[in-house]
């Protein structure tokens, strides 16, 4: 029988991969932001699973930091998207490729 830790980690891996796929195939910049959220959430899940395996609070502490970071990231990210939308009149991230270095 599969152990709880393994099962939880596999779930986190699957969710993360799904977010990654979404990140790679989407051109809509809001979808890309959501993909990042999916992946962050998967990473948080992995921390929680690890915390329960070792019985230590550090994993949950890390999840709280991820939560704080996600909140900040979303707020700034949405503000950036808003600016970009005003500038480009589209949400297509490839349109922003004119900024190539």
């Amino acid at each position: 029988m599969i152990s709880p830790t393994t099962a939880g980690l596999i779930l986190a891996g699957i969710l993360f991969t799904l977010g990654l796929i979404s990140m790679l195939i989407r051109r809509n910049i809001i979808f890309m932001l959501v993909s990042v959220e999916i992946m962050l959430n998967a990473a948080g899940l992995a921390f929680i699973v690890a915390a329960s395996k070792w019985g230590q609070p550090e994993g949950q502490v890390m999840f709280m930091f991820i939560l704080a970071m996600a909140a900040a990231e979303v707020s700034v990210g949405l503000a950036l998207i808003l600016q970009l939308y005003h500038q480009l009149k589209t949400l297509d991230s490839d349109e922003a490729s004119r900024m190539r270095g």
Partner: protein
Amino acid sequence: MGTAFYIAAAVAILSTIMVITRYNIMHALLYFIVSLLSVAVVFYLYGAPFMAALEVIIYAGAIMVLIIFFVMMLSLGSQTAGEERSWMTPGVWIGPSILCLVLLGELVFLILQPAGPAGEVRVVEPKEVGLSLFGPYILAVELAGMLLMAGIVGAYHLGRQKKKIVHRFLQTPES
């Protein structure tokens, strides 16, 4: 591992798949909320009830609602969905999907490696978490506070509706 976990896991995976396949952004966001809620259930099952609550309140409640309101504010409707559909051709998604599945395979392979004794789920009390947060991790907490502060200031600054100043490099020919 109990049946509850498998159900929650299945719901999470299925709803996430729905998120990444939707063309309408509003539908995708709602599915993502379902995914988050099921992940909160998984948290609870793994002995982190406080985190499950936070997941529901902050992620599903605050962050996702913020995004939803944002989308509504931009009033992106069916026209964006059609655009989305036109972008999503098999040529676009097959390659990255295969690559990501390879990555998943590797991850699973590594997770399945026998490492240490397989323990049962242990409950970590919120009290412990609080002691740890405001004990050894106090510095990180303050950093997180600063990060949030920066986020607020950045969001305010970037999101301000001001007179449109187009950088000369971004000026399109028609404008």
